[in-house]
C-alpha cells in the first residue's frame, strides 16, 4: 500500500511498471512460486543443481506442449480431450516413419508428423463446428479414434527416432544452467504463437473465447477461428508427440496422462476454463511447478498413494487462492 503511493507520486514510468505488474499478477505469482519451489527442492536435496534443472526441463517438455495445445483451444472457448491421444498417434507415426531410416529422412518425418497433427486438429475443429455437438463430446469421442489409430500404426512400443531428434533436448545452451529442452520449447511455441497473437486471427481466438455473440456481431469469423484453435492444438500436440519420441527414442501407442495434465496445467497457469483469458507462458511455468512438486514428493519419500492426493490438493489450493484474489480485485 505504502509502496504504491510512494511510486505513483514520483513518475509515470513506475506507474506503468505497476500496471504491467498488476496485469500480470498471476504470472508473477507463478514465477515466485517456481522460485520458491526450486529453493525448497535445493533444501530437501542439497545436491540438486544443473543436472536437476536439466531433467526438470526435459520431463516438462511433452507436458508443456500438451498444456500449450490445450490452452489455445480453451482460450478460444473450447476444450480438447483428445490431446493425449493425438500425442500418442503422432508419436507412433513419427516413430514408425523414422524406424531404420537415415538422419536426413528424420527431418521429413518431423515435418510430416507436424502436418499430421494439424490435420487431426482440423478434423476435431471441423466436427465441432459442423455438428454443433459440444466440444467436450466430440473431442472425447475422437480421442478413442486417435488412440485406436495409434494402436493400428504400432500395436506395441517400437519404431525409432533420429539421433539428432533425441539429442535436441539434451544438455544446455552456452551453459549447463540453461537447458536445451527449455530453449527448444520456448522457440517452438514462440515461433507459432508470437506472430499470431498480435494479428487479427490471434485476437479473434480471444474474442470468440470471451464472448461468442459479441465476436460474431463484430464480424469475427467464428467457425474459422474455432477450427484454427483446434488446428493449433493439433500442431502443438504433434510437437508433444515428437517430444515423446525424443525422450524415449521409440513410439508408444498407449496414450499417456497428458490430457488431464494439460487441463491441470492451464488451470494453474491462469487460463480461464470459460475462455478468453490467459496466456501460454503461465501454462509453461505451471507445468514446471507441477513437475517439481512430483520430484520433491519423490525426494521426500512420501507414500506414493498420498503423493497423488497431495498433488491434487496443491492444485485445488492454488486455484482457490487464485479465485479469491480475482474476486477481491473485482469490486475495486
Amino acid at each position: 500500500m505504502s509502496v504504491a503511493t510512494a511510486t505513483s507520486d514520483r513518475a509515470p514510468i513506475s506507474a506503468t511498471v505497476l500496471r504491467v505488474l498488476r496485469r500480470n499478477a498471476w504470472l508473477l505469482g507463478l514465477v515466485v512460486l517456481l522460485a520458491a519451489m526450486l529453493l525448497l527442492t535445493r533444501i530437501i536435496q542439497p545436491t540438486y543443481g544443473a543436472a536437476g534443472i536439466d531433467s526438470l526441463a526435459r520431463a516438462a517438455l511433452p507436458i508443456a506442449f500438451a498444456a500449450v495445445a490445450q490452452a489455445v483451444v480453451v482460450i478460444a472457448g473450447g476444450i480438447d480431450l483428445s490431446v493425449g491421444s493425438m500425442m500418442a498417434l503422432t508419436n507412433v507415426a513419427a516413430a514408425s516413419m523414422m524406424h531404420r531410416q537415415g538422419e536426413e529422412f528424420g527431418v521429413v518425418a518431423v515435418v510430416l508428423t507436424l502436418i499430421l497433427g494439424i490435420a487431426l486438429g482440423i478434423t476435431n475443429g471441423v466436427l465441432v463446428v459442423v455438428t454443433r455437438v459440444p466440444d467436450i463430446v466430440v473431442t472425447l469421442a475422437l480421442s478413442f479414434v486417435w488412440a485406436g489409430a495409434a494402436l493400428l500404426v504400432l500395436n506395441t512400443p517400437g519404431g525409432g527416432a533420429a539421433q539428432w531428434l533425441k539429442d535436441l533436448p539434451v544438455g544446455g545452451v552456452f551453459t549447463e544452467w540453461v537447458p536445451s529442452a527449455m530453449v527448444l520449447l520456448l522457440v517452438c511455441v514462440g515461433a507459432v504463437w508470437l506472430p499470431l497473437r498480435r494479428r487479427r486471427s490471434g485476437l479473434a481466438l480471444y474474442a470468440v473465447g470471451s464472448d461468442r455473440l459479441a465476436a460474431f456481431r463484430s464480424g469475427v469469423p467464428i467457425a474459422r477461428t474455432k477450427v484454427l484453435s483446434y488446428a493449433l492444438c493439433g500442431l502443438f500436440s504433434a510437437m508433444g508427440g515428437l517430444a515423446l519420441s525424443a525422450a524415449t527414442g521409440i513410439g508408444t501407442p498407449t496414450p499417456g496422462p497428458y490430457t488431464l495434465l494439460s487441463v491441470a496445467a492451464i488451470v494453474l497457469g491462469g487460463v480461464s476454463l470459460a475462455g478468453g483469458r490467459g496466456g501460454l507462458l503461465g501454462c509453461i511455468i505451471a507445468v514446471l511447478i507441477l513437475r517439481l512438486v512430483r520430484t520433491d514428493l519423490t525426494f521426500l519419500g512420501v507414500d506414493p498413494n498420498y503423493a497423488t492426493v497431495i498433488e491434487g490438493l496443491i492444485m485445488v489450493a492454488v486455484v482457490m487462492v487464485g479465485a479469491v484474489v480475482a474476486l477481491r480485485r473485482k469490486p475495486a
Partner: protein
Amino acid sequence: MNHSARRVLSGFGVAVMATALALPVAAQDSATYHIGASNTLQGNGWREEMICSIKAQALSSGQVSQLTVAHRNTDAAGQISDLNDLINAGVQAIIVNPVSPDALNDVIKQATDAGIVVVAVDLAVTEPSAYLFSNNQEEYGYVGAKWLFEKLGGEGAVFYMRGAAGTSADTDRDTGFRRAMAEYPGITLAGEVFTGWDIAQGAQQINEFLASGVPFDGIWTSGIDSTIVDALVTAGAPLVPVVGADNAGFVEQLATIEGLEGAAVTNPGSVGGAGVTMALRVLAGEEVERQVLITPEVWDNTTPEGQAAIAAANDPAIDGTWPLGISIPDWTTYTKDEIIACAGPGE
C-alpha cells in the same frame, strides 16, 4: 506488522537450516545404501506385491538405509523423469519395472555411467549395462496356453482375454500363446479382448461375451482370473477350463470350486525383492549373472502334483489379487508377515 513478519521469517529460516542440516547427517550416519525403485502402475495387485517385496527385502537385508520409491501411474516419458529424479536423489542402485524395453535406454545408460547399479525386474531392457531379474513372459503365455489346448484335446474355441494393448508384457505373452496355437491347429479363438489388467473391465467383457451366446470351450486369461470364474459361476455358465495366474483368489477357487478345472501359471511379484538382493550383491562386488529368468510353473488342479502345489500355495492371508509367489528362494529373506506389512527402511 513488520515485527511479526520478521519473526515469521526468522522462524522459517531456522526451520530451513534445521532441515538442511538434519538430512545430510542422517545419510552419513549409516554407512549403508540408498536404493531407488521405479514403477508405473498403481492399484494392480501384482505391482503392489512387487513394491512391498522391494520394501520388505530392503528392510530385511539390513544394508539399506533409505529407499526412495517412485510408484505412480505414468508413461515412458514420466518414468524417464522419475529415473532422473532417483539419479538426482543420489541413489546407489535402482530397481526398475520398465514400461518398455527400449524407451529407458538413454537414462539407464546415464545411471550406469554414473556408477549406479540398475536392475530391471519383470521385463527386460535392451540397454546392456542393466541387470535383469524377471519372469519369462513369452514362456508364461506358452505354457498356460499349451496346458489349455492339451486339456481341450487339441480341438475347440478359446476365449482369449489378454492384458493391456500395446504393452510389451502383453505382446510377449501373445507371442507365446500364438506359438502354442500353431502347435494345435484344431484350436480357434472364440473371441479376443484386452482386459487392460483391470478387474472391472474384465468383468464387463466376460459378461458381454457370455450374453453374446458365442460357443466356447475354454478361457485363457492374462491375470484377471478370479473375476472371470466368479462371472461364470454367477451366470450359471458351463465351467470350462480356465487358465489364470497364481493370484491368491484364483488359486483358492481352483482348490475349492467343485467342477472347476483350471491351471494357475506362476508369475511372482517378488521379483522386486529379488532385484534388491541382486543389486546389493553387485554393490558388494560379488560376481552376479547379468540375467536371471524365472521359468513359470503350471499348477493344474486336475493332476495330483498340481493339486499338491495348489494346496501348498493356497493362503487366505494373502490379498486375493496378489500372486502367491511372495518369496523367491535364495533371493528374498523377508517373512510373509514382513511383505504383508509392506514397510521399508525407516517406515
